[in-house]
C-alpha cells in the first residue's frame, strides 16, 4: 500500500511541489502505486479529479485527500481524518464555533439580505452586541495575528505581543487584527449607528470580519503548533462553526455557493490540519513539513474561495446603484486589500492590476473585467 512508502513519497512530494505550482495535474507513475485509484492514461491520481470548471486543476503531492478513497493515495500516513469526518482533538466543541455563530447572526442583522431595507441603528446595536459578547469576536479581533508575516521580535517565549501597547502600530501587518481590522469595524459601527450609509458600513464590517475569520483559521493552526494542541479544533470552529463537511456556516457560507469545490478543498485542508496533529501530537510540533503542508492546503483553498467572493462582488458592482453599489465597493476595497498579499506572492504585476481596481474609491473607476481577469489568473485553483 502506498502508506508504506512514506519516505519515498515525501521525497517525491518536495519535487512535486514545484510541479503543482504550475497548476498542472499531479500524477504518479503507475508503478509507484500499489493501491487502487483512478487511472488516467497509465498514471494514478493522488486525489479525485477536479470537477468543471476546475478540470485543469490538480492536487499537489503535498495535499491531503480524504475524499479520494479515504486518503489511501496521497502522501499522508493513516490518520484520524481519513474517514472524512473531523474528529475533535479536545474535549468539546471549540469556543471559536460560538464566535462563528455570532458572526452569522450579525450577518442576519446587517448584510445577509441586500434586498431588504437598510439596516437600522437598532440593527447595528444588536450586531455590535453580538460582536462584543464576552470572550467573543471583538476580544479576538484585538489580538489576531496574520501568520503570513514574520513573528514579532518577542522575548522570553511571549508569542502574543500584539496585545502590548504600541506594538500593533509598529508591526501592523503581523498584528492585523488590532492594526487593520479593529479600526475598520469600530468606525463602521459608529457610522452605522449614526445611519451614515448603513449598507456601506454593514459591508465594511462584513468584509473586515471575513478577513478576520480567514486569518483565524490559519492562526489557530499556528498556535496549535506550540500553545494548545486543541487550537486545531478552533481552526475548524472558525471555518464553519465546527460542523462537518456539509455544514455551511462562517467562511463556508461565502465560499460554497460560489465554488463548492473550493469549500471541499478547504475542508480537506481543515482535515489536513487535524491529521497533522494526529500524526504529530506533541507540543511543540515535531513535523514542521506536515504542518506547513496542511497550512498551505487550507490557505490556498480559502484564498481561492475568497478570490471567488471578491470576483462575485466585483460582478455585482455594475448591476447595482446608489448606496448598494457603494456598499459593494466598500466590501471590495477591504477584501481586495486583504487579497493583495496573496496576489503579490503569486504575481506582482497582476497584483498591481488587481490592486488598482479594488482600491478605487468610485465605483465608476473600477474596471471589473480587468479585476476579475487578474483574480482568475492569480488564483486559478483552490
Amino acid at each position, binding site marked *: 500500500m502506498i502508506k508504506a512508502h512514506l519516505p519515498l513519497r515525501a521525497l517525491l512530494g518536495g519535487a512535486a511541489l514545484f510541479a503543482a505550482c504550475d497548476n498542472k495535474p499531479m500524477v504518479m507513475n503507475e508503478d509507484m502505486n500499489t493501491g487502487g485509484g483512478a487511472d488516467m492514461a497509465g498514471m494514478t491520481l493522488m486525489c479525485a479529479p477536479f470537477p468543471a470548471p476546475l478540470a485543469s486543476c490538480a492536487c499537489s503531492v503535498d495535499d491531503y485527500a480524504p475524499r479520494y478513497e479515504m486518503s489511501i493515495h496521497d502522501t499522508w500516513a493513516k490518520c484520524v481524518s481519513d474517514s472524512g469526518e473531523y474528529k475533535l482533538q479536545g474535549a468539546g466543541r471549540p469556543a471559536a464555533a460560538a464566535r462563528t455563530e455570532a458572526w452569522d447572526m450579525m450577518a442576519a442583522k446587517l448584510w445577509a439580505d441586500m434586498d431588504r431595507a437598510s439596516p437600522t441603528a437598532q440593527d447595528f446595536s444588536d450586531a455590535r452586541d453580538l460582536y462584543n459578547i464576552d470572550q467573543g469576536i471583538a476580544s479576538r479581533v484585538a489580538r489576531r495575528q496574520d501568520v503570513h508575516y514574520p513573528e514579532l521580535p518577542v522575548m522570553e517565549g511571549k508569542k502574543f505581543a500584539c496585545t502590548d501597547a504600541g506594538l500593533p502600530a509598529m508591526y501592523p501587518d503581523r498584528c492585523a487584527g488590532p492594526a487593520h481590522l479593529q479600526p475598520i469595524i*469600530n468606525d463602521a459601527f459608529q457610522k452605522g449607528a449614526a445611519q451614515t450609509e448603513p449598507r456601506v458600513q454593514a459591508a465594511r464590517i462584513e468584509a473586515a470580519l471575513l478577513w478576520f475569520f480567514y486569518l483565524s483559521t490559519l492562526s489557530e493552526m499556528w498556535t496549535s503548533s506550540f500553545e494548545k494542541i486543541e487550537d486545531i479544533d478552533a481552526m475548524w470552529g472558525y471555518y464553519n462553526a465546527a460542523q462537518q463537511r456539509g455544514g455551511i456556516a462562517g467562511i463556508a457560507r461565502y465560499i460554497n455557493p460560489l465554488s463548492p469545490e473550493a469549500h471541499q478543498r478547504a475542508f480537506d485542508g481543515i482535515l489536513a490540519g487535524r491529521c497533522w496533529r494526529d500524526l504529530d501530537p506533541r*507540543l511543540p510540533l515535531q513535523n514542521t513539513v506536515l504542518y506547513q503542508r496542511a497550512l498551505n492546503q487550507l490557505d490556498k483553498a480559502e484564498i481561492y474561495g475568497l478570490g471567488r467572493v471578491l470576483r462575485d462582488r466585483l460582478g455585482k458592482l455594475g448591476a447595482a446603484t446608489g448606496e448598494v453599489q457603494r456598499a459593494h465597493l466598500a466590501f471590495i476595497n477591504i477584501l481586495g486589500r486583504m487579497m493583495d498579499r496573496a496576489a503579490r506572492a503569486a504575481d506582482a504585476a497582476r497584483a498591481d492590476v488587481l490592486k488598482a481596481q479594488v482600491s478605487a474609491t468610485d465605483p465608476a473607476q473600477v474596471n471589473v473585467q480587468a479585476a476579475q481577469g487578474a483574480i482568475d489568473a492569480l488564483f486559478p485553483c483552490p
Partner: protein
Amino acid sequence: MPRPLPAALLLAWPAVAWAQEYGTSVRGGSDGELPEERAVSTVTRADLDRRLPRSAPDALRWEPGVYVQQTAHGQGSAYLRGLTGQQTVLLFDGIRVNNSTYRQGPNQYAFTIDAQTIDRIEVLRGGGSTRYGSDALGGVIAAYPIEPFLVKQGAAFRPRLLGAFTTADSERGGRAEFMLSAALGRSASLGFGFYGGAGGREVGPLQNAGPLQNPAYGEHPSIPRYPDVPRYARDGRTQLGTGFGEITADGRLVLAGPSHRLTLASYHYLQRDVPRTDQCPPPTAPVGECLTYEEQFRHLTYLAWDADLGPAARGLRVALSHQRQHERLRYENQGSFFLRRGEDDVDTLGLMMRAHTDPLQQKGARISLVLSYGLDLYLDLVRSRLRRLFTDTGEERELPRGQYADGSSYVTGGAYLDGELRLPGRVTLRAGGRYGLSWARVPAQPESGTAPVDRGFAPVVGHLGAEWRPDRRGWLRLRANVDVSYRAPNLNDLSARLQTGPGFQFENAGLDAERATTFEVGALLRTPFVHADVWAFETLISGGVLKVSQLAPTCPQQTPQCASSWARFQLQNAPALGEVRGVEGVVRVFLPAGLSLRATLAYAWGEEPRVGEVAEGVVGVLLHERVPRSRIPPLNGTVEVRWAPGRARGLDLSAGLRWADAQYRLAIADLSDGRIPRYGTPGFAVLDLGVYYRVDARLSFGARLENVTDAIYRYHGSSINGPGRGLLLNLKLL
C-alpha cells in the same frame, strides 16, 4: 436627666484622665466570642500599629494557619486551613458579614473592614458552624471594633489625626477621629461614649522588583518565561491593574449602665476603582481591556443590647443589623468602545442573640456546667442589574439579567446550644449542636434562561471536644475536638453567572449542602517564658462543591459568553470525600530586656475526587482519580524578633521574616487560572524591618521597611506580586 455637656469641656481636651488606654477602655458584649478551646489566635491593635498592614486581611499574614491571597491590590482573602471565601465566616462585632452572594474561591469582602477602626481580629481555624452557622467550614474571622471610652464623671473629648504613607504603592491616606464621653445622671451610673471618624486614602499602582518567572519555563516551548498575570508597565516594576481609592466613615455610640449597654453603630466603607488585576487586562488581552470594581461599598448599621439578666442569661447580646453590600463592576474594552456595567446590591437584615449561664454546680460538687445558647437569622434581598454602553456612540442598553437573578432572596440562620462541663482531674468536656436553616428563592427569568429556585436546607451539626490539663498551674493543655460544620448552597452557587479566574462559571440550582468534619488535636503551653500552640487537623468534606469543567452545549440559554469562553465551569457536589489535613503552630519566647521571638508554621495538604478534565491549553499534566484541592497554601511561616523595652510606650523594634515554600500541587481549575503561574507558585522569603515609637498616648510613629531584599514573590493564588522594597510610614497625633 442627662446633663448637658459643657462646651468648655469639649474644647479643653483632655480634661479628664482616661480610665484606661485609648480605645481599649470598655469592652462590648462581643468580647472574647470565639470558643477558647479551639485553635484561635488574635491580632491586637498593638500588632496592627507595629506591623502597619495595608488592610484587615493583610493584618492576618502573621497568624498561624492563615494565608492571605490577593486577586487584586485592593482585595484580600484569608485562607484558613486551606479554605476561604464562602467557606469561612467573617464577623464584625459578632454580626455576620457573609451574605449569600459570596462566591467560591477568594473574595474581596474582608478588605471592606477598615483596619483603622479595628481593635483586634480573632481567628478561629477549623469548623465553627455550631455557633456561626453556614459557611464556617474552614474557620471564622472575627473583627472587633474600637470601643469608645466611658468616663465615670464629667466629660471628655479627644480628637486624633492619623496619617499613612507608603512608597511601593504611593499610598497617601489619613483619618480624623474623635472620642467623646460623658457621665449621665447624678449617681454616675449611666454614661455614654462616642467614637467616630472619617478617613480616606489614594493608593497608586503597586511596584515590585519585576515579574515572577513561570516555574515550568524552559520545560515546554508553549510556556513563556513570565505569567500572563499581572502585566507590567514599561518600567518592568509597576504592575498594571493595581491601585484604588478608599473612603471610610464610622460612628459608634454607646450608652452604658451598670448591667446594660446599648450600642448604636454604623460603619461605612467605600472603595472605588479597584481593578481586578487578573482581568485588567485579562491574560493575552490588550491593555485596554479591564474589569474594575468601580464601587465596592459596605454599609453596616446595628443596634446591640448587651446585658446581664441573671444566672440564666449572662453576657446576653441581642443585635439588630442592616448591612448593604453594593458593588458596581465595569468591564471595559477600549479597543472596541465597549463598556458593561453591573450593579449588585444585597440588603441584609439580621437578628442575633446569644447568652450563657452561670456555672451550674451543686454545692460541694467538683463538676460544673456552663451552657451557651443563641440564635441568628439573616435575610438577604438581592438586586442585580447589568447594562452595556458603547462609549463612542453613547448608546446604552439594559441586559436581560445581571450576575444574579434580580429579586432573589435568601434566609440563613439557626439556633444553637453549647455546653462546657468541667470534671474532676482537670478535664473539661465541651459539646454543642445547631439546628440550621437556609432558604433560597430565585425568580424565574425566561428571557435569560434562569430557572426558578425555591429550596431549603436544614442541616443539624455539632461539635465535641475534650481538654486535659496535666499540671495544676495549667501550663500545658491538651485538647481534642471533633466538629461538624456545613455550608448551604447560596445564591451565588444556585444562580450566579460570572467570569472567574479559571473561566466562565454558571449556576447549578440542584446543589446540596457541603459538610466538613474536622478532627483536631492541640497542645498549648503557657509558661512565663514560652507560649506555644501546636495543632494537627484533618478535615473531611462531604458533598464538597467543586468547579467542574463543562462543554459548551451545557451552557445555560441566552448566555453566549459561556460558549465563547476559553473554559467553562459549573459547581457540582463532589461524589466522594475531599480532605484537607495539616499542622500549624505558633511559639512565642519571652527573653530578658524586652526581647521576644515569635514564629509560626503551617502546612496543609488537600485533595478531592477528580470531576472533569483540564481545560484546553494545559500541557504535560497527568490527572489521577484524586486531584489536589484548589489553592491549598504551601508550607509557610513567619519569624519575628522584637525588642520592646517599654511596656506601653517607647521604642519598639522588630524584624520579621515571611516565607513560603513553592506550591506545585494544583487543582484542575488552577491549571487554567491566570493567577497561578505555570504550573505552580515559587517559594519566597521576605524580610521586613519595623520601628514603632510611642511617645505618649498622644503621639506615636511607625515605620516599616518592607521587603528589604527586594525579593520577587507572590502569595500562592494571587494576581499581584508582593510589594518591592519600600517604606511604610504611619503617624498618630493627638
